[in-house]
């Protein structure tokens, strides 16, 4: 029964998630519509000062006691217009072709330098075009907002309300408008480091930016949905469809297994240490924290060497006789070594085991903190009522921990989909695929989408396919995050454990 309920919950979650997403998009469009309507109304009902603000932003401010603000807004308009038309527009004009002039050079013996022609760089055209488009959107938004604000000022003046001076405006940023001050820096950061690259990433997926079209020497151009077709189809020579399906399945299996093994492993470990019969609690805790203190990078590279075919673990296993035993029960193909990181199934097993070892201490720390916070009266009354230890764990401890760590569970699941370090550091240079179809698209059985993407860009310079994979990873992660967060963090189940 419980299991059926669990699945019903998940399906419900997906349905509600979709509903919320559609509602969200609807709300966004409605807000845009309202904004435009408001702008139209302000323009229609405004006096000549408001109407002139359409041409000269800040005019309404300037003529209604907000002189400094008006000047600043006017400067902003001039600077933006200058940047857009003289810096951005030359790039934007080539946006539809992404450039037509290839680089040509001649060596000039007199100056000992190369003389270059005025060539196009498709990547810069793409990048600056997108920045320009965002700048234009920003300008249009502020321009409309400005007209609305000027109309507000007109009304305030008519009603005889107080209009803030510049000094008062500045002060308000530290008081009633403090949230604006606090949020502006993170938002600027997100736009420069997340939104702009994301837009470029999405755009690259629709181009032929690959090894044959590397900038700055060569040009690339738009190809529509070709790359998306390629990732979902397979032929003898192009096996991206096959590889994508195979890697996606392993990525999801990995994310589920890695998340749950470390999660429960960490909780159990914390409970064992927290048990009142355990001696030297602090020592044990320290021992496990130490393994966290060593950088993952270092420990993973060390472990990779230990688990090589000729590594120390194999030598030990051969001496003790484990290798022979495994060979006799047909778990390994040769009697010489255990292919910990060189056979597809063994490598997956080893990676998960090593991930447990790397991941558990962190969860142990989290769980320890939570365990110490469980109200002891509940535990006590359960004990008095005659509950066994297992019952107390199932009915009190686990629901409590689950409730508090549910958001962590979601983020770590998404984090594991993109768990680059463990997979890459353990298998790079060691693992060679034996699946020829995977090899034909530079993929390997143990790859996650993210490591495949990395090797496509780094080794193959195949940016277009990497972008497609990037978009798909983004969609998958957003999907899980939105749905899971929505269901998991809903407060309605807060009291259930009591």
């Amino acid at each position, binding site marked *: 029964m419980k299991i059926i309920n669990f699945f019903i919950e998940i399906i419900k979650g997906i349905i509600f998630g979709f509903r919320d997403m559609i509602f969200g998009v609807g709300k966004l469009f409605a807000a845009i519509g309202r904004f435009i309507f408001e702008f139209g109304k302000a323009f229609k009902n405004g006096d000549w000062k408001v109407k002139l603000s359409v041409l000269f932003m800040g005019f309404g401010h300037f003529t209604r006691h907000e002189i400094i603000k008006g000047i600043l807004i006017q400067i902003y308009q001039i600077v933006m217009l200058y940047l857009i038309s003289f810096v951005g527009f030359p790039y934007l004009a080539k946006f539809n072709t992404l450039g037509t002039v290839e680089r040509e050079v001649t*060596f000039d013996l007199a100056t000992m330098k190369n003389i270059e022609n005025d060539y196009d760089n498709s990547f810069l055209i793409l990048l600056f075009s997108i920045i320009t488009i965002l700048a234009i959107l920003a300008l249009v938004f502020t321009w409309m907002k400005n007209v609305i604000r000027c109309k507000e000022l007109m009304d305030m003046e008519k009603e005889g309300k107080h209009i803030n001076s510049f000094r008062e405006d500045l002060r308000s940023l530290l008081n009633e408008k403090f949230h604006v001050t606090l949020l502006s820096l993170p938002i600027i950061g997100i736009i420069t480091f997340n939104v702009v*690259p994301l837009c470029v990433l999405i755009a690259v997926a629709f181009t032929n930016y690959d090894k044959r079209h590397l900038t700055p020497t060569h040009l690339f151009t738009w190809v529509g949905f070709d790359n998306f077709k390629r990732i979902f189809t397979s032929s003898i020579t*192009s096996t991206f469809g096959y590889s994508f399906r195979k890697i996606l399945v392993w990525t999801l299996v990995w994310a589920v297994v890695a998340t749950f093994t470390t999660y429960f492993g960490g909780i159990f470990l914390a409970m064992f240490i927290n048990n009142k019969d355990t001696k030297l609690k602090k020592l044990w805790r320290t021992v496990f924290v130490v393994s966290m203190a060593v950088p993952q990078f270092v420990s993973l590279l060390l472990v990779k060497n230990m688990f090589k075919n000729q590594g120390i673990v194999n030598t030990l296993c051969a001496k003790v006789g484990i290798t022979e035993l495994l060979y006799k029960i047909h778990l390994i193909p040769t009697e010489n070594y255990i292919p910990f990181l060189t056979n597809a199934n063994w490598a997956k097993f080893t990676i998960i085991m090593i991930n447990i070892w790397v991941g558990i201490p962190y969860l142990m720390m989290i769980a320890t903190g939570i365990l110490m916070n469980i109200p002891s009266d509940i535990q006590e009354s359960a004990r008095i009522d005659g509950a066994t230890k297992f019952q107390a764990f199932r009915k009190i401890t686990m629901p409590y921990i689950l409730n508090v760590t549910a958001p962590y569970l979601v983020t770590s699941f998404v984090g594991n989909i993109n768990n680059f370090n463990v997979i890459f550091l353990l298998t790079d240079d060691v693992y060679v695929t034996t699946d020829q179809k995977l090899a034909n698209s530079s993929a390997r059985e143990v790859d996650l989408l993210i490591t495949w993407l990395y090797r496509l860009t780094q080794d193959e310079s195949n940016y277009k396919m990497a972008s497609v994979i990037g978009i798909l990873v983004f969609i998958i992660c957003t999907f899980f995050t939105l749905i899971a967060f929505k269901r998991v963090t809903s407060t309605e189940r807060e009291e259930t454990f009591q």
Partner: protein
Amino acid sequence: MKKRLLALTMVVAMAASLVAGCGNSSKKEEDTTGSTELPEVSLTMWGSENDQEILREMADAFIEKYADQATITITLDVESESTCKDTILTDVEAAADVFAFADDQLNELVQAGALQEVTLNADTVISDNGGEDSGSVQAASYDGKLYAYPMTADNGYFMYYDSSVFTEEDVKTLDGMIAAAKAAGKTIAMDLANGWYLYSFFQGAGLELTLNDDGVTNTCTWNATDTDPTGVEVAQAILDAVADGVFVSLGDTDIVSGIQAGTVCAAVSGTWNSTTISEAWGDNYAATKLPTYTVDGEQVQMSSYAGYKLVGVNAYSDNVGYAMLLAQWITNYDNQVYRFEQKGYGPSNVEAASSDAVAANPAIAALSLQSAYATVQRVGGNFWDPAATLGQILANGNPDGTDLQELLDTAVSGIEAAVE
């Protein structure tokens, strides 16, 4: 991760383009005013970690030599010759002015427009290295034009062996070697799961792998059925060779550790391991050409790739002229001799290579024995992954029992696939 990586790439790209832009404009100003003053030239150079000291000495000598023509500063950075291409292709404009790389990367670097054609003293470079038909010049040329400066001619592979295990007769055939190693209870190692080495079997049997005229895609006849021997026979020969578990596939670092541990008594490798291997085997250290192997009852000589290390000049360098002079300088006769004396690297310069000291070096002697069967490497990027997988499957003894013709057909379709 993905977003962060991309963001980083974008920022680097933007910064690089800005820096490059500024660099250009400031240089132009200098030229107009600097007719009396010496021009300031700053160059960066990439070389392998082991060669940093020797490169510094050469760079300082270069600065001194041209002190009357320009004020030169040279910055050195570590970039392995084997990964040079990947780093450069990530961002050509941010790469060093002068860099050392292995000759297998030349093709893709030229394709990406990263290499400056040698337009300064090209004839001298060609004649120093033995004329247009010599292997090193061909390895540094593309489409009849010279794109790089040959630095060493020792980047190919051959057979190292422990002379206490093998007689000189044993090492002539792979079968003889396997028998001797089996008797000694040791193994013979070769990195079969790597197209670079796997090539030796197929090429030796006359099956071809060539680069098409477009410079990107390959033509491969490894799956041929109308040749003698056929592709399947060669694959079967490899399977037979590994069947005993004596001839094993090991990566380069594992070969070295196996030799040091005493489990490996012969290995296919190159001069880069000569010092470590000679230390491990001491007086029993020996090297020779690759052996013959048995295909369908007949002995076939294994081929190999003749490897060269080259020095290239960045086509986007602000000081292409001095960069070319520097590249020529560090690969000239004196410096090649010096490199051999200090590091034991085999010279590509014919005069330097003909010295008695070079001929006395066992590893380089073995390489020159092998050179009769070696070919210059011209391969498109789609060769490596399918070939590595083919090698891995054969090295594992074809555990799934796939039909060999099918195995080769799939590998060849991957190798010949269009780059997309």
